[in-house]
């Protein structure tokens, strides 16, 4: 695969963009950006329309920046970085308004997540005829981690680059196999099954519980013994991160968000190809039936049924404790206990409502006074997590293998956390 086009790292580019926007000469641009962002609060969410409006705005701004005195004599690359900065700024600001903004999308996310949760319990590489030379746990784990980072970024470009990194890991695996094992490369017929398998492993709600646990252990070490504000800030950021990571994976919403909001001129060529492959992996999972797999039809149905029963058992064991702590159970789950399992596995954590008022907070907006409240929430999350763990452990009676044996407990902070942690703003008084 080709090296990424931009030479400068995304964060450098972005701070350069913010700097230019603080220059008084850019007042007109800042005004347009701000009024565009504000205009979004006047309409209800309509993803296709919103996407069109944002893309049109990017084009308008591209023209404006191209003619702007601040960019006089700028190279194409410099203008391109400004546009990347613009995309990141606008989409970070509009994130909660545009990401999974309609109930249908959240519903699809939940359904996919649920189906993956079931597949997880029995799907093996041979069911997708992945040749033995391509079964490399270490590479797969790396690819999964790259893909999971998608939820720690808000900018479409950064989300897309998580997909690219994941695909790059898989491609390297294929190339190594072709060189060292004399495996004849079969193009997409090798790549796609591995990507599907990695996507399934990376998208399980269980994995997010593991990461939640990783972070909670980190927090235990820190132990809230901070006196200085810097430390308080650090802990608050970690809590925010834990809460974000605890969100169930939103495969559908992430793909839709990239499709709608990544600058159109950038979702082309290789990026478009690997993006399409993840869409393709998602579609494969959604439509997956016994016929899609090298697996006996009856065996498939039995395994799916066993997985469903396992999940109901989790729910029954977990519910009394959870309800004892007045966790709001989504009404859909109340109506159909057998169906909306993911809601119960992740009670209300994924809901940015009043119970978790910091879900949409930026680290910079928090004050030391918030620590007490955050500590309360943190304890709440830990308690819930422990109840879930207990409930899950009780499941060992079931004959199915434990879902996703992720033994290694390494921490999972993204390398460039500015996507979620850094408060960004164009600070100026106008």
């Amino acid at each position, binding site marked *: 695969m080709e090296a990424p086009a931009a030479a400068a790292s995304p964060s450098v580019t972005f701070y350069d963009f913010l700097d230019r926007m603080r220059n008084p000469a850019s007042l007109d641009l800042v005004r347009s950006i701000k009024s565009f962002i504000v205009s979004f609060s006047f309409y209800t969410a309509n993803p296709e329309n919103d996407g069109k409006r944002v893309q049109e705005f990017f084009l308008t701004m591209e023209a404006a920046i191209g003619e702007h005195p601040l960019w006089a004599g700028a190279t194409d690359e410099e203008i391109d970085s400004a546009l990347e900065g613009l995309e990141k700024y606008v989409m970070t600001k509009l994130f909660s308004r545009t990401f999974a903004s309609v109930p249908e999308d959240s519903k699809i996310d939940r359904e996919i997540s649920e189906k993956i949760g079931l597949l997880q319990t029995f799907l093996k590489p041979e069911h997708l005829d992945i040749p033995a030379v391509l079964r490399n746990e270490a590479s797969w784990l790396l690819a999964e981690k790259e893909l999971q980072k998608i939820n720690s970024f808000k900018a479409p470009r950064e989300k897309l680059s998580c997909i690219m990194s994941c*695909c790059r890991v898989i491609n390297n695996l294929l190339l190594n196999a*072709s060189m060292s094992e004399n495996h004849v*490369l079969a*193009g*997409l017929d090798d*790549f796609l099954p591995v990507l599907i398998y990695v996507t399934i492993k990376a998208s399980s709600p269980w994995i997010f519980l593991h990461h939640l646990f990783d972070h909670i252990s980190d927090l235990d070490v820190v132990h809230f013994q901070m006196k200085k504000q810097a430390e308080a800030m650090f802990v608050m950021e970690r809590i925010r991160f834990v809460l974000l990571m605890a969100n169930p994976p939103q495969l559908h919403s992430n793909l839709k968000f990239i499709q709608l909001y990544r600058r159109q001129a950038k979702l082309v060529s290789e990026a478009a190809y690997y993006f*399409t492959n993840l*869409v393709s992996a998602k*579609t494969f999972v959604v439509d997956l039936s016994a016929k899609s797999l090298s697996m006996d039809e009856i065996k498939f149905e039995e395994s799916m049924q066993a997985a469903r029963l396992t999940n109901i058992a989790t729910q029954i064991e977990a519910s009394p404790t959870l309800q004892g702590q007045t966790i709001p159970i989504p009404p859909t789950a109340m109506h159909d206990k057998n169906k909306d399992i993911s809601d119960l596995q992740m009670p209300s954590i994924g809901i940015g409502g009043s119970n978790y008022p910091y879900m949409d907070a930026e680290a910079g907006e928090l004050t030391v006074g918030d620590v007490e409240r955050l500590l309360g929430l943190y304890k709440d999350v830990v308690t819930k997590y422990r109840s879930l763990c207990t409930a899950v452990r009780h499941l060992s009676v079931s004959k199915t293998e434990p879902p996703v044996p992720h033994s290694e407990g390494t921490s999972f902070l993204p390398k460039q956390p500015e996507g979620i942690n850094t408060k960004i703003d164009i600070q100026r008084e106008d």
Partner: protein
Amino acid sequence: MGCSSSLPDRTSGRLAGPNIENGGAPDPKNLRVKLVLLGDSGVGKSCIVLRFVRGQFDPTSKVTVGASFLSQTIALQDSTTVKFEIWDTAGQERYAALAPLYYRGAAVAVVVYDITSPDSFTKAQYWVKELQKHGNPDIVMALVGNKADLQEKREVPVQDGIDYAEKNGMFFIETSAKTADNINQLFEEIAKRLPRPPSS
């Protein structure tokens, strides 16, 4: 199994430098074209691409780029260049329903069959119909009978390919990824048939 190697017969027509990504308006002198490959599993799609892009038939030799997305720029006589961005598709039956995700927006579709396999020729006709129904209406389609080196095992007569292609307004060629026969011609002919954006 696999592709046994033979030497590339031609390296001309390649451009040394990478094509600058052109996100804006299409540049009539430097076209960028999405080309999708369709066809039954095993007909030689991947081998055709490797042969075209790297001049090699042996895909096990050292490679540095992804195996399923490859691009290659060719220069035409009129000093225009065409950068083919080649999208491989998965040939296995379980992935057939995903094909529309790949051919959506493609400017060129290359439908490949194996001249030793009548089944693959039937499958090629299925893809042609599918593209006529759901593909981009201006799509340039090529029908390719591959493995032309296996004359003694031929089961699909040349004339069948010619007739079917003519009926469906497609360009037809027989190739061999193994001997490199007609591989470059295939892409050059496609390049000539591309609709040109009006020069400004």
